[in-house]
């Protein structure tokens, strides 16, 4: 897919909470020996998807240098909204000063909700409907105690402000692609606290099929090959999957490594691919090409090709994502449960 008008990213930000739970701590409590990631990020008791979104959004606004009242859309992609009914986007837009002349909505598509918000914002700017549109992917994901997802279900988010491509944009979009089928690999019914998943069904027919579908579709449409890119980002439910799918497509570890944050923060769900893209923009140089593919259960993938511009060197001031990843306090399993409100009082 290509836009009628060329679209770029004018500002971005990413945030990960300070607390971490190590895989070894989960194993200590439940007697397992797994380590799909080394450790995962955990929210403080006063954080949620809205506060994570505001943190990333404020960074994006500051770096963009734009007046936030000119932002015409704020879309929050998440599966962990603080309210079942009341849009998270209203609170985020009010907090950053984008109200009242703004379109907002919460967008759902499991772990792909963040990149789906990006596709929506790209469309709004690419059609000329909005001058600036902000897409956020953020989650405070929870796994059932003792479930395999408990090692990885993590918290964090990233925000991108889209605008017409200009000398002010830090990267411009070359093309994007979406690939969706009805695949019941992971779900949560209404009023259920934890999601269920189809166990082995989450691999080949779900994650791999959809990422490969979107990636191959976009490569074919644009005529690029994996070696044409400097960097590649894939959705990160654990450490192994993004490496396996990336290498299978012909990408190298050197291309994947800068955006591979799951080993240190876990799977931030709707935040995962957006955070990986932000981590890659943190180290990219003008002219670099970035390939990014999300995955959301249910299932689908969005793929993007961005080319980094000159403005990146002066518009990524302030703390980078690595500052938030390296800033950490470990919690034990009991404190983790307390922070997540999982202890019955």
């Amino acid at each position: 897919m290509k836009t009628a008008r060329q679209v770029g990213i004018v500002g971005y930000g990413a945030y990960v909470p300070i607390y971490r739970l190590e895989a070894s701590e989960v194993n200590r409590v439940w007697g397992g020996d797994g380590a799909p990631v080394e450790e995962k990020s955990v929210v403080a008791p006063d954080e949620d998807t809205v506060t994570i979104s505001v943190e990333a959004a404020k960074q994006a606004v500051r770096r963009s240098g734009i007046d936030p009242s000119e932002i015409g859309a704020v879309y929050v992609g998440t599966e962990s909204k603080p309210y079942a009914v009341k849009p998270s986007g209203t609170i985020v837009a009010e907090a950053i000063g984008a109200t009242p002349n703004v379109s907002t909505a919460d967008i759902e598509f499991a772990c792909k909700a963040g990149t789906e918000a990006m596709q929506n914002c790209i469309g709004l700017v690419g059609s000329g409907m909005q001058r600036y549109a902000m897409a956020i992917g953020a989650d405070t994901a929870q796994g059932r105690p003792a479930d395999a997802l408990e090692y990885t279900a993590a918290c964090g988010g990233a925000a991108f402000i889209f605008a017409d491509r200009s000398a002010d944009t830090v990267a411009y979009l070359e093309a994007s692609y979406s690939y969706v089928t009805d695949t019941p690999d992971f779900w949560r019914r209404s009023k259920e606290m934890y999601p269920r998943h189809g166990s082995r069904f989450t691999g080949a027919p779900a994650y791999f099929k959809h990422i490969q579908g979107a990636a191959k579709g976009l490569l074919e449409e644009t005529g690029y090959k994996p070696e044409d890119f400097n960097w590649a980002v894939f959705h990160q439910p654990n450490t192994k999957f993004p490496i396996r799918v990336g290498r299978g497509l012909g990408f190298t570890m050197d291309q994947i490594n800068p955006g591979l944050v799951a080993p240190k923060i876990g799977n931030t769900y709707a935040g995962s691919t957006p955070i990986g893209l932000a981590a890659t923009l943190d180290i990219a140089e003008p002219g670099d090409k970035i390939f990014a593919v999300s995955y959301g259960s249910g299932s689908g993938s969005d793929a993007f090709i961005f080319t980094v511009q000159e403005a990146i060197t002066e518009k990524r001031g302030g703390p980078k994502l690595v500052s938030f990843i390296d800033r950490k306090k470990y919690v034990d399993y009991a404190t983790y449960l307390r922070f997540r409100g999982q202890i019955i009082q």
Partner: protein
Amino acid sequence: MSVPRYWREEVPRYRLLGKVCAGCGAKFFPARPVCTECGSTEFKDHKLAEVGEVVTWTVVRNPPPGFEKYKPYVVALIELEDGMRLLSQVVDVDPEEVQKGMRVEAVFRRVKEDGKAGIIQYGYKFRPVVE
């Protein structure tokens, strides 16, 4: 805090937005109807600085109702870079790590929840500056 009052005070709390007196330039946060320096009732918006330092602090171990899940927590008097002072929780820090002069920055957090079914009140808190 009632829902109408939370809503009325939302923007100043969300964005650290105070008032500056049109008569004498005195700054206020939160806003006041009459300037305590010159008696003027005309004000303009004043965006507070979001970085400051801890002047003094206390550790709350027996919090008022609605704040129990955050205990123990730090409440500090903070002097912002624009000279304004305010009281705020300081988060992402263990109580024993807080020091006079510690550089802190504003963050947007949950302040209080009205039970499991009521409104979630958001507002500013501060944390050690992330470089």
